[in-house]
């Protein structure tokens, strides 16, 4: 993690002794100048909007921002007094858990299969990466063509088979559909990481286990899975963040949060309140809540889950 660039690091005896290498700039302004472009981008595009969201969370404004009042914590108290918001929190928990487990599970399965000595393995690998390149709205349209109860291929087949499939009116089916569609989009990403993880596991360890008589399933659970845990851990974080923040495109195109409020998640509600309903105060308050939840989640993961990870 040490810095790169021109340095006046003392070489010679110190280095030879193996003491940690210190990189020191002669001019004090130079490191700041070198960091400035990146810092500027971070401030303008990340800190400034984030600070603005926090500030807006304490205001009530009309859509055009002509009349502004400071309302303190009112946007937050309104939010938590709303039983529908608590329902949205529950939906989000179900949705995020579903997406993460499904996309990780399927990706791991596919990666384990694609890692074997099979014909045209590269072709499979390339094809499996494709869904990641598809825009969420387009992905959703594909899923509509499959699962729409009247015009969808699978939707019609289900109804013909006597299963009353109608995600436009059945909340559980709608939730299942948005989880499937969102997880499917993320499988490719997970697949690449799992595949890379699998390929970096030393073959000798596996061969030794095989010689000892361990069957493939046992080899997988006792050797491969533990050795993959850093990758898995990283992917859990990434997938949860994806499910929290990146899925409103799919939800918007598939169900618009409905039927009733069955598929409304925290990010979707923040989007609708801010952009469609033009209520910036409430939307900002929701963004702040979302920010806090994800910060806590990441902290918990790094503190407790990481302890069990074998690096």
């Amino acid at each position, binding site marked *: 993690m040490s810095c790169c660039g021109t340095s006046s690091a003392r070489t010679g005896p110190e280095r030879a002794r193996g003491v940690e290498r210190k990189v020191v700039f002669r001019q004090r302004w130079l490191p700041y100048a070198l960091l400035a472009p990146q810092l500027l981008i971070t401030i303008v595009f990340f800190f400034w909007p984030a600070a603005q969201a926090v500030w807006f969370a304490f205001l*009530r*404004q*009309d*859509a*055009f*921002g*002509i*009349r*502004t*009042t400071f309302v303190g914590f009112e946007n937050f108290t309104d939010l938590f007094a709303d039983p529908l918001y608590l329902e949205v929190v529950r939906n989000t928990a179900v949705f995020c858990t579903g997406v993460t487990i499904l996309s990780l599970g399927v990706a791991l399965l596919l990666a384990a299969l694609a890692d074997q000595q099979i014909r045209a393995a590269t072709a499979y690998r390339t094809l499996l990466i494709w869904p990641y390149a598809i825009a969420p709205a387009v992905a959703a349209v594909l899923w509509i063509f499959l699962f729409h109860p*009247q*015009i969808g291929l699978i939707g019609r087949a289900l109804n013909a088979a006597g299963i009353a499939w109608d995600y*436009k*009116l*059945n*909340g559980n089916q709608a939730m299942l559909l948005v989880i499937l569609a969102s997880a499917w989009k993320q499988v490719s990403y997970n697949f690449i990481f799992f595949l890379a993880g699998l390929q970096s596991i030393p073959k000798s360890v596996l061969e030794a286990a095989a010689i000892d008589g361990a069957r493939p399933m046992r080899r997988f659970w006792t050797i491969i899975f533990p050795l993959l845990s850093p990758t898995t851990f990283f992917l859990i974080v990434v997938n949860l963040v994806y499910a929290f923040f990146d899925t409103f495109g799919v939800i918007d195109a598939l169900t*618009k949060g*409905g*039927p*009733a*409020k069955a598929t409304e998640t925290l990010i979707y509600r923040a989007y*609708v309140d801010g*952009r*469609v*309903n*033009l*209520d910036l*105060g409430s939307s900002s308050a929701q963004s702040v809540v979302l920010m806090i939840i994800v910060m806590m989640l990441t902290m918990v993961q790094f503190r407790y889950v990481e302890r069990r990870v074998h690096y």
Partner: protein
Amino acid sequence: MQRRTLLAGTAAISLTTPGLTRAQARTEIQFWHALPGALGEFVNQQVKRFNDSQATVTVTPSFKGSYTDNMTQAIAAWRAGNPPHIVQVFEVGTATMMAAGPAIRPVHQLLAESGVTLDPKRYLAGVRGYYSDTQGRLISMPHNSSSAIMWLNLDAFEKAGLPTNELPRTWSQIRSAAEKIKAANAAPAAMTTSWPTWVQFEQMAAIHDVPFATKANGFEGMDAELRIDAPFFRKHAEFLLALQKDGLFRYGGRDNAADALFPNGEAAIAFMSSAARARVEREAKFKWASVPLPYHDDVTQSPKNGVLGGASLWVLTARSRTPAEYRGIAEFFRFISDVDQDLWWHKATGYVPLTVAAYEKARAEGFYTQNPGADAAIRQLSRAEPTPNSMGFRLGGMIEIRNIIQEELEKAFQGQQSAAQLLENAQRRGNVVLRNFERANRA
């Protein structure tokens, strides 16, 4: 020597191309709209004709995505101090725009200041009312208007043994037609609806002359309250739930998601926007008819006008706007209100004409005998003098209110709540939206 030829050359260019120098002095007008595909092409064609028709103004149309995208981008641009001159806003955004005070320039004021006279009476009553203040002055410019009408699959009607020369006009006739269609298995679903709130609540309130909200549906003040727990809405909601329970009605989703079910023959009766005509003409492989929406004949014998949908054009202010720019906008508005322009727009896009004169001209030309049903929306919009209940809706947060009603309706269709609970919940949640809007815009 060389220098002289160069100078002479420049002089020659400026002499031979007077248009070039004049073009540089043209006033630029930015026009943001949300009409995609073919409709957007018609906007471009009309703008081009306007630009070619005079020498001082150039209107530049830009497509900005959905109605919601277009509106939020224009608002963001205004907040950043660089808004377009004209922005197209859908009818449910009307109250938000109207409350924007210094951000907008009311059309009547714009016209008066620019010395352009356009009599509000030239616009169809149902169109004019929606975009006027209580004194009847235009606040925004009518642009693309439609209304909700009823679409009937005549092949399915024949198959069910129903007459196709005498089409149903009331809800009770619709119910018995749906029963026959179901009994004869003439279509997978007897009926469906697009735009559940717009058609089954807003249009029904207007047609039956029942208030949707107090204060003349919000026209007379921001302190309006919803009145959808009234007996009429309960009657209609119970009617719809009973249809669904008896397998005569299929819920097709929010907004216009159900549009797909009519042209593919899935639903024999559908309630959709009149703007769906192009799609039905293109996709439907059966005989069909489009007629005004049905009414409950035990509530009224003479249904009022329906309300419009679609969008109007709003003039946004900016610190750097010059009088010449405002005059240019006014000239453009005069151009699109011209009878021949309006007639062309009506025929090309399928939207209703904005002016009475264009409607009469189209009728005199026999356009509606060649295209039967193309005037259903116009007849429905102008069949009565608008009452305070049928003039339109001026409710803040109308988009949110529409979604709330759709959500509660879905809960009722799922069997989770009764019609009375649906209306009570929708009214309570809708009133919270209205109060928040009032507070945000009064402070």
